């Protein structure tokens, strides 16, 4: 059986300001099965975010191909939900209307949006409650803290029940307490809904806390240099010796990459 996400020999070169081009990814291959939670970890500038853009169809690869759900990715695909490092809310919409945004665009929801609005609102409110934003639906995003906005951004990424969730360092800009709380929120959402996740991060603890499998990315041009399954049972304790051992081990691996 073919993996749910199949990235094969993908190379991507961005055109440079000069005559040349910057090689962001060099022959990256990754297979992700349905329902897996995968983390891609690497130093900044290694092309992790680029990888997500390729999978989401926001950017075409220079060489190689990406297959998601048995289809070659040729443009944005609707079974994907995405959250970025910045929450990127629309300031003229309430939090609720921000969360509902994908439903106004993604079919088949967009067609029924007006008629079904009440149902969708119920769904959005339930999701907001699940991430701890009960009672904030009618607030505007700029009335919320950074962590609350990021929670709302997660809701927006999930409201159309995507099969594939792409997370581009979504917790990178948050304080440590909020970040770790959101880890558990994400973990619970993932175990409740069973979607597939690709999480891009530079935080090893975050990767090990959440993922089934951690892929290590080299510095630019990005290549996958190590992949490691994480078999610790959930809920994981980041202070447990076996957890710490894994993080330390991965850390040593990355340090080697940076030196080489």
């Amino acid at each position, binding site marked *: 059986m073919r993996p749910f996400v199949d990235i094969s020999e993908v190379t991507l070169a961005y055109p440079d300001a000069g005559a040349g081009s910057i090689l962001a990814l060099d022959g990256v291959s990754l297979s992700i099965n349905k329902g897996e939670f995968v983390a891609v970890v690497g130093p900044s500038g290694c092309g992790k975010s680029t990888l997500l853009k390729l999978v*989401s*169809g*926001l950017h075409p690869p220079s060489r190689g191909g990406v297959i998601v759900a048995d289809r070659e990715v040729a*443009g*944005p*695909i*609707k079974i*994907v939900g*995405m959250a*970025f490092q*910045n929450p*990127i809310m*629309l*300031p*003229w919409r309430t939090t609720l209307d921000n969360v509902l*945004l*994908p439903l*106004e*665009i*993604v079919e088949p929801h967009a067609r029924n949006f007006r008629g079904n609005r009440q149902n969708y609102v119920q769904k959005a409110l339930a999701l907001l409650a699940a991430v701890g934003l009960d009672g904030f639906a009618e607030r*505007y995003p*700029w009335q919320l803290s950074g962590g609350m906005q990021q929670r709302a951004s997660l809701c927006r990424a999930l409201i*159309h029940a995507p099969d594939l969730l*792409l997370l581009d360092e979504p917790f990178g800009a948050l304080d440590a307490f909020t970040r770790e709380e959101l880890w558990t929120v994400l973990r619970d959402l993932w175990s409740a809904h069973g979607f597939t996740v690709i999480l891009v991060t530079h935080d090893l603890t975050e990767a090990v806390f959440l993922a089934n499998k951690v892929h290590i990315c080299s510095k630019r041009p990005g290549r996958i240099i190590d992949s490691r399954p994480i078999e610790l049972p959930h809920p994981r304790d980041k202070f447990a010796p076996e957890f710490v051992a894994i993080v330390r081990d991965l850390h040593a691996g990355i340090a080697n990459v940076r030196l080489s």
Partner: protein
Amino acid sequence: MTARLEAVIPWLFIGALLLVWEIVCVAFSIPAFILPRPTLVWAALTAQFAPIMSNSLDTLIRTIAGFALAVVLGGLLGVAIGASRLVYRGLYPVLIGFNSVPKVAVVPVFVIWFGIGAVPAILTAFLVSFFPIAVNVATGLATVEPELLDVLRALGARKRQILIKVGLPRSLPYFFASLKVAITLAFVGTIISETVAGSSGIGYLMMAATANFDTPLVFAGLFVIAALGIVMYALFAAAEHRMTFWAKRGEGLTV
């Protein structure tokens, strides 16, 4: 205390200005046909109240008509320029050239085409005021953050959906800011046309008064225009406040 001071300070300023003016005129015994005292202007205003009002109404109607045209066409043009690179490249130089032409120079052309009356005034008001609207809307669309676009593009949104869901709301603050500028410019346009070739309106009234050396009446006309301008500006400032409250959340750079 500060709130009450803020409410009355515009009136204090106007009052002080008029007082200084009055004193200067009396102290240097400036003749009324050169610079009339505010009290003389007031006298002219009350004495000729009916003709001033009917001519002001003409001017106001023409200004609003020209301004409305400018809002619709300038807004559409701004959306076209902001949303399409090709339109931008093709049209922008033409627009700038067009806007550089002194509008007083085209009024005679309008008169040849449409005769003396309301039409040249409306067209001039339109011409003067549509440019800032078009440019501002285009700027609003062109400066949408790429991250904001990515959020919609990742969902597979089409260009038209992105324009409606992000582009237009995002450019609303720019649009309203331009309306405040455009409405005052529209008055300028109307009155230019009325002074060059009119048979009614405040501009025409002022030309007629100048011909009779009735300088107090000329100034009465200026006062009425200024008052109309302030009222219209305040109207659009209030609309802006209502529609784009989300864009203006702090005190800004006010000290």
